[in-house]
């Protein structure tokens, strides 16, 4: 599926004289309809404007791979192109260990920052706020805010271990392409123990299917963990409930929040 831009009109100054133009225009319109409702999507400075509150309805968070229902997960067909993550043998062992210990070892259980791409398909709302220079992603779960820089800056020269990685985006037509590096290895990809290492490199493609629907794709590579790059894809739906808003979810504070504030004797 191409995500490349479509020229919306002729470039010749006298196109109407040529019958071929009308045919080209017609084909162009079909192409537009086949790819996205690019005429109807919100825009900011000419680029798609993803501002809003979004959430997936997929079961990706529970297990990226195809799975039947179990006590801690609804069934799901999986969200990976080709079905399964191409783990290297040693990594597959680790994944199985993670799965066995998932109830306690999943960083989510402690209320930790979910990381990228998990924060996108976790089953909680996330708010996107957009400027020309950057796109800010606020997940309801946790307190960590992600910035996708779209101002032509590159990844930092030095190596970093970021829970959310370092995100640099650019526009390819109406698709936002984000390159994410500088990861830490303590985040998981889902509740089933799927994981990555510090060598993770994610390339995301964000595009509108219509004004209220985003197609999100992430290609993950990590030569220490996977035998080849692999791609997951989910759909994000816009929250349109009246006055819908994020409600802070700082649940990592739960072990101690009963001690505050002091109570009147």
């Amino acid at each position: 599926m191409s995500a490349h831009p479509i020229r919306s009109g002729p470039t010749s100054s006298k196109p109407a004289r040529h019958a071929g133009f009308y045919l080209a225009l017609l084909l162009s319109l079909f192409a537009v309809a086949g790819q996205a409702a690019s005429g109807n999507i919100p825009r900011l400075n000419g680029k798609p404007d993803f501002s809003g509150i979004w959430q997936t309805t997929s079961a990706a968070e529970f297990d990226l791979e195809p799975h039947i229902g179990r006590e801690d997960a609804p069934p799901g067909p999986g969200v990976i192109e080709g079905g399964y993550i191409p783990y290297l043998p040693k990594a597959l062992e680790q994944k199985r260990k993670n799965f066995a210990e998932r109830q306690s070892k999943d960083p989510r259980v402690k209320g930790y920052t979910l990381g990228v791409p998990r924060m996108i398909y976790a089953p909680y709302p996330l708010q996107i706020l957009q400027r020309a220079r950057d796109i800010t992603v606020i997940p309801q779960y946790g307190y960590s805010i992600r910035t996708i820089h779209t101002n032509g800056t590159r990844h930092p020269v030095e190596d970093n271990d970021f829970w959310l990685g370092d995100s640099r985006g650019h526009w390819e037509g109406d698709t936002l392409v984000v390159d994410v590096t500088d990861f830490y290895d303590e985040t998981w990809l889902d509740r089933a123990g799927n994981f990555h290492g510090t060598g993770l490199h994610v390339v995301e493609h964000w595009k509108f299917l219509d004004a209220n629907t985003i197609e999100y794709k992430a290609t993950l590579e990590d030569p220490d963990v996977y035998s080849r790059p692999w791609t997951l894809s989910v759909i994000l739906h816009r929250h349109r409930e009246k006055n819908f808003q994020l409600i802070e979810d700082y649940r990592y504070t739960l072990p101690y929040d009963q001690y505050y504030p002091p109570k009147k004797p």
Partner: protein
Amino acid sequence: MSKHLRHRAIALAFLVLPAAAVLAQQMPPAPGTQERPQGSGISREISFPKIAEGKWTGPRLADGQPDISGHWSNTIANHNNFTDPQGGIINDPSPRAQRPGGPREERAPSRISDPADGQLPFQSWAAEKVREFQANFNNPIKPEYVEPLARCAPGGVPKSFYWHGYEIRQYPGHVLFMFNNGYRLILLGGRPHLPERLKLWNGDSRGYWEGNTLIVSARNLNGKALFGRSGEFFSENATVDERFTFANDGKRYNYVAVITDPTVFTRPFTVTIPARRYTEADTPNGWHYEASPANYDGKALLHERHERICHENNGGFGSPAVISIPGQKTN
């Protein structure tokens, strides 16, 4: 060293660097301000200018909001001591404690601007709780004597405005405060607050602009964040009405908030916190301006702010202690 540890090391370094070295990295005072001759860490101004509410003549965003986006930090002190901001941690036994000498007026004023005595109008039971916290803070034998920020809890209102520096981003209908630990998203316009029973660390904020002043009502606060290492607090019944008044040159703002809580106090009181902007003209530092040069082709220096993680890296800002809690990793 990885970045997340490095950030923490920077913060710690500021605690142990000689005071003169710290001051050398800080900016010259703005006109109308006075600096402390010595101090450590975040301490700086001992007085600050008032900013009158009125017209905004500075730049505006496309949606008409005054453009105040960027990096900001308070100019006085951190959360060691709420009513004597440069007075150091109360009862601090540490040999490197900042021990205030000289008369009170040589230090920055109380953050309480009303009542005039600078003291919080606590009911007697609440004043007793604060004394108990202060007496036990340096040897917290019970969990409630640990300042919540030492566990990386969100800073809450108003403490978030005098911890580390923070970034403000603006969007149509929104003003976003990005603190090192949590955020506040001010929704502009007349939408109702969340249902009253929902209580949150950073509350629920609604606001609007009037000239140079962002007027915010903070509700749904859970009262858990405390005001700092001196242990003052309000309850889950508090309301906070905030006015962020920006100077038209865009360099400073004053935060003035009226806090009302009949559960804990005998009357409403007013908190005032001065702040200044940080830009590429400033040297990044571990308290106020944790920025790094962006990697890009432009010639001009461009700063950006990297990820801030407190909780996950167990980098508690723990003076003096972070105690172990079952199910909770600590340092």
